[in-house]
Each structure stands twice: as C-alpha cells, then as structure tokens.
C-alpha cells in the first residue's frame, strides 16, 4: 500500500509548527480531497477554507512544496508527478497575512484593491436602470479578466510582492484595474490606471510567475504591459521604468541594438548615474566584464527596421 506523507504548516495565532499526517494513496483525487480527508479522518482542528469544489469560489488555494495551487482544481497525481515525491508540504499562500493554519486574510487586500476603483464608472451611453448595449467584441475585451476568482495564487507567486514594502499592487488588483479600464461601459479609464501607475507599476520584474500559475489562464503579464502603455499615454513618461523601456525602443530604431553603456544614463539621467552607478561601472570595467567603448554600429538592414517602426506607428494610429 502506497502512503502519502503530508507535512502541514500550522499556526494558532501565536505559535507556528509543522504537523505530519499520512493518508493511503488513492488514484484520481485532488489536493482538496487530501485536506478534507485529513480534517475528517485525522484532525478536526485543521483549519483551511473551501466551498464550491469547482474552481469558482476561489477560496481553497494553498502552497504545495513551495508552489501555489487552487486545491480543488489540482490533481494530487499531477502534484506527485511534478515533485517526484510522496512527501508533500502544505503551507498557506505567501504574501498574505495568515489567520490560522492555511486560512489567509483577504480584508487588507480588498482595502488595497479599492484604490483602483474596481467598479464601472458609467458612461452616458447607459446607466444601472436602463443598462448598456455591448457588442460581442466589447464583451470579449473583458471576458478573460472577468474570469478572475480572487484565489490569490498570483499574489502568492509574485516575486515583487515577496520583497516589496506593501505599496505594489497584487497581480489580481492589476487585473481588476485592467478589466474596468477596457470595459466599453466605463468612461474614465484613467481613474483606474493612474492609481496603478502611482503604486509602483514599473516594479513588476517580468518574472512570469502570475501568468504561469493563474488557474484561470488570465494573461496577466500582457495586461501589465497594457497598463504600462496606458500610463505612458496619460503622460507618465518621466520615470525610470518608462525611460528604461524607451531606451530599448529607441536604440533598436536607431542602430538595431542596445547600447549598454548608455542604458543607465538614459534611464537615470547623467547626474544620478554619475553619483550612484560609478562603483558598479568601474568594477565591470576593471575585470573586463564590459567594454565601455563598445558603441554598437548600425546593423545590416537598419533601414528596414526603421520602416517596421513606421508601419507599427501607422497600426497604432491609423
């Protein structure tokens, strides 16, 4: 008989510890089945949240061997296969306050979410009484972001939140801002986008964890790119993030390749670079890690690249 060993992180409000449980292996079960079986058969004091069992309510996400999953949607066999082990460690999601055992606090996150005005600011084309007419295309704009069930998996996997002081917005909050800013019934996208910009939008590291772990397959990183584009459109160009992105954009148009020596200056300006990046540059130069005099020459076919840029401009502004 195959036994699966579970180590579950417990927390009673003061004390933290790991507790061991064992269950016989059964084929075709889910993580939530294991949690429920442990609570019903082995330990009624184990606290976790769950409700719908159909990936709709979003309440049962936990971490298994360091990765975050929606427990009801995730097959136990798949997890055992992924980690090639019969030892599983269950922990509460990261980047949340823990209430008890695997139960996490959502209220602080909901307070944080209010900043992006996660509601429709109605245009004069309709109202709550009369409703709105939306085209099929309009609907498709919001159909994927409205799939979010607030399970918290993206937050738990976010590398920026893991080291951030707290201002940076959770990926699901960015998704809400996106969802309302592209809704055809909303008349004030800037009211959703400005708070996103003001809360460290450019600190996203592009680590791709959110898009890779979302149980609903929401293209979160594409949404973040859109929010950044929109922040540029509302005039927020004088910041490190936008200037850094434009350094790549401009270098490719001008020569085809990045000028790494000029990149810090384009991002931070000459004065800040001179005062903060000199030791970094000197140690690179000293070791021969970088040649500061390497100035990329225009690539073969740069004329064609400029034509591609011209065409992309026309596509953007027909």
């Amino acid at each position, binding site marked *: 008989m195959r036994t699966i060993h579970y180590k579950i992180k417990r927390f009673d409000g003061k004390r933290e510890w790991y507790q061991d449980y064992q269950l016989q292996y059964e084929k075709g079960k889910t993580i939530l089945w294991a949690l429920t079986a442990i609570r019903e058969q082995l330990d009624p004091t184990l606290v976790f949240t769950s409700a719908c069992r159909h990936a709709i309510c979003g309440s049962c996400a936990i971490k298994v061997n360091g990765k975050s999953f929606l427990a009801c949607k995730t097959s136990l066999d798949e997890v055992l296969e*992924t980690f090639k082990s019969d030892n599983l460690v269950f922990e509460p999601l990261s980047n949340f306050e823990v209430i008890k055992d695997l139960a996490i606090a959502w209220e602080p996150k909901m307070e944080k979410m209010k900043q992006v005005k996660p509601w429709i600011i109605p245009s004069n084309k309709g109202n709550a009484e009369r409703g709105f007419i939306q085209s099929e295309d309009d609907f498709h704009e919001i159909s994927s972001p409205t799939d979010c069930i607030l399970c918290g998996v993206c937050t738990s996997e976010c590398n920026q939140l893991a080291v951030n002081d707290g201002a940076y917005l959770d990926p699901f909050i960015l998704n809400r801002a996106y969802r309302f800013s592209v809704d055809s019934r909303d008349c004030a996208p800037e009211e959703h986008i400005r708070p996103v910009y003001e809360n460290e939008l450019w600190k996203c590291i592009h680590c791709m964890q959110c898009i890779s772990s979302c149980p609903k397959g929401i293209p979160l990183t594409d949404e973040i790119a859109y929010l950044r*584009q929109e922040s540029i459109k509302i005039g927020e160009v004088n910041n490190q993030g936008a200037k850094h*992105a434009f350094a790549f954009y401009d270098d490719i148009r001008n020569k085809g390749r*990045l000028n790494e020596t000029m990149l810090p200056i384009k991002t931070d300006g000459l004065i800040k670079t001179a005062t903060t990046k000199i030791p970094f540059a000197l140690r*690179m130069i000293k070791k021969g890690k970088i040649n500061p005099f390497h100035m990329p020459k225009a690539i*073969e076919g740069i004329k064609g690249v400029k034509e*591609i840029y011209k065409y992309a401009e026309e596509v*953007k502004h027909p």
Partner: protein
Amino acid sequence: MRYAFFPGCTLESAAEELMISTMKVAEALGIELIELKGWTCCGASHIQDVDDFLATSINARNIALGEKLGVSKIITVCNTCTLMLRTAKAKLDQNKNLRAMVNEGLRSTGMQYKGNVEVTHLLWALIEDYGLDRLKEKVKRPLTGLKVANFYGCHILMPPKIMGFENHMNPQSMEMIAEVLGAESVKFDQRLACCGFHAVFPAEKEVMKLTGMNCLSPKASGADCLITPCPLCQMQLDAYQPDAQKGFSKDITMPVLHLPQLIGLALGFSPQELAIQRHVVDAIPVLTENVLV
C-alpha cells in the same frame, strides 16, 4: 549540427565572456553556429511595454533572418532572448490576422515570416539534439567534487505555454547536464527564484534583496558556485553582488558562472580560455581548489 545563432546584445558588450565560452564549447562539440546577419535586440522584455505589436514585428524579422538560412532552429544562450523570440513566434503561429499584419510591415524589408524554424536555447539543444551520452563522451576533465547550484532563471521556464521544454515547477535539465559533467548539484531554496534583473532600475532596493537571498541560499547549501543559463541572471547575481552585500550582515560571496563556462571546464579548457577571470566575483580560487588540480 547547424544552428542559426542569435547572440543578443549582452554577448557583444557586458557578457562578452559568454560569447567567448559559447564559441569555444560549440567548436569543441562540433556544433556549427551561424550568426544571423543583421539581427536586432529582442526588446529584452521591455519593448512590449511601449508597443507590443512592434515587439512581435522586430522579432518576426529576427526569426525571418533565420528562416532564410535554411536551418531548422535558431539557437540562443539567453533566457530572455529565447522568451522574446518564442513569444513572437507563438503569437504569429496562432493568429493569422496578426501574422498578415506583421508581414505587411516586413514587406518593405523584402522579408516574410513563414513560421518554419523553431527557437531553442543551448541548454535544451544539448539535451534534445546533441544528446547527453554524446556530451559525456566529450568530457576530458570531469568536474568531480565541484558542488554547483543550478539557477535556472524565470524566462527559460515560463510561461510554460510558450517555453514548455520541461515542467516549470520542477525542471531537471540543468541537473542532467551537471551530472554528465561530473559535478554535484546541490539542493537550495532559491533554485527557481527570480534574479530581479529586469526591474533593477525602478526597484533597486527590492532587487538587491533578491540578489542577496539568491547568493545566501546556495551558500547555505554548500555550493561552490552558482551556474546560470542566462547572461542577465549572471550579470545581476555577479556584477551587483557587492551592492547587494551592503544590505546583508552575513557574507554573501558566491561566484556565478555561465552554463557554457561550466561545460567548457569539463571539456578541458582553462578558466582564461573561457574568460572566467572577467567575472566580478572571482570564481577561479574555488575552481582551482576543486577541479583544476
């Protein structure tokens, strides 16, 4: 074996040592790398924040350069270049309208994206195309006793729909290569962590914290050095290490090698031939102690 080679910008400047070691290793293994003529920067996971259509277009052009060479694969040695090229390819292959629009933009260059080459990374190509047995036969100096910490970097694994070479939650390709070379892979918490490189300007404080954690974790596991398949992870973890140290009271010193440098050592090249002396954190003492005797 022939590949169209997409070096990426760092190999020309801040990671020239990766160009040197890649070329040495490819030659020793009998892998022909034909550099694409007129390649552009991939956009480095930044350009789509200005214009995502343009990001797809310039990489359609890069891929089209490879298609003209009549090879089946474009190869890179940078995680982010691989991700950018593969992202463009996935979009162009899945969306006919987008492909038609992008090709309209390419028309003036006389090029066209056809979709008949794959985009791979050296790490994958060694396993998938070259073969670990064949690699093992080429080992002249087994790296016995060297404890390596394999640091994958995000963009060679995720998003799995675009990358998908192996399970992104528990990849094994780096460990497989290390084993063939005779090195011992250590287990460490930050094996699949993010280096933070892409936000080092707007999130300097946070990224330095990540760098320190990424060095301390392998150190605690007894690793002699960290190995990465990405020059951007390498630059973040090596060149910024003295800056990251300021935020930590414990010594975080951890040498960081490029994957081709590790392979090159096992193939018998000296650290100098692989330009290992160019790293900010000196890796040569630990290599001398363990494998160069």
